[in-house]
């Protein structure tokens, strides 16, 4: 018998039993672990120390939180939601201007004098949409500040 290896094996069994993960009858002197415990004072002390440490750990509470994490989390969720909306709108403006330009090149449209006004009207409509949505402006502002605008 190798006492070192045997102690470690028995301690692993005892640990699992204390954790409710295995069910060797520690108190039963006929069991493997019980026989070992009867002969090994070191493992007996180890078991008592482990039980005492488990008791202390079970009473431990988490430190209180002083920061207002909810405010930070809700700001971040809000920010990511609205930034997606603004990006979508900017993409729509770009697609509208490009689409209009392609239409001009492909088809001979009537009233050519009014043509330059169409992308301008689209841009004004998009800016109006953003301006009526204060959340979009809030999201854009820090972005512009970051870029030094």
């Amino acid at each position: 018998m190798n006492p070192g290896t045997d102690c470690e094996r028995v301690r692993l069994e005892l640990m699992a039993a204390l954790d409710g993960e295995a069910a060797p009858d520690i108190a039963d002197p006929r069991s493997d672990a019980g026989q070992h415990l009867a002969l090994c004072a070191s493992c007996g002390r180890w078991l008592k120390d482990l039980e005492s440490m488990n008791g202390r750990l079970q009473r431990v509470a988490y430190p209180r939180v002083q920061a207002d994490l909810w405010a930070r989390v809700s700001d971040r969720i809000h920010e990511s939601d609205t930034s997606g909306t603004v990006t979508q709108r900017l993409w729509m403006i770009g697609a509208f201007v490009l689409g209009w330009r392609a239409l001009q090149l492909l088809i001979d449209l009537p009233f050519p004098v009014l043509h330059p006004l169409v992308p301008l009207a689209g841009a004004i409509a998009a800016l109006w949409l953003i301006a009526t949505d204060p959340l979009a402006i809030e999201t854009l502002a820090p972005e512009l500040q970051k870029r030094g605008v």
Partner: protein
Amino acid sequence: MDDAAATRACLAGNLDAFRHFVEQYQSRALAHARLLTRHDADAADATQEAFVDAFRNLRTFDPARHFYAWFYVLLRNRCFKQRSRRGTRAESDIVSAPGIDPGVSEEHLDVWRAIDRLSPDDAELIVLKHIEGWTYEELAKALEIPRGTVMSRLYVARQRLLTLLSGETP
């Protein structure tokens, strides 16, 4: 409000209902993040981002499971990202020991100080096993290691904590 009701309300578009999760789990999440990152500001950032991740991915959460076990995987990933970012920053920026709330009782403080002196991996196992009461199976799943490895690592972590609590140098 319980977790299942809060989940339903969030999925119906009520952002305020998510406050329940943040208020319910922020203390333990911050404590865990502090142990994993060893840095107060990084822990706060990782916890905040993990909650944002949880909100975005709430549809994938099965309300039959415990919320924190699901959330912990997100938190752990965020902590590892913070840790790797921190690793690339200047040495002078590193704070080795996270602060412990002065409101903690003397007995708890001794235990937290000892846990704090363990490696992040050992501390994580001890806290999840002893304070959270997770089973070996739950630990194996969250930490993505076999059950046998959970047992052997837990054994070693406990040995180290026993030594620290008895006042010896490990």
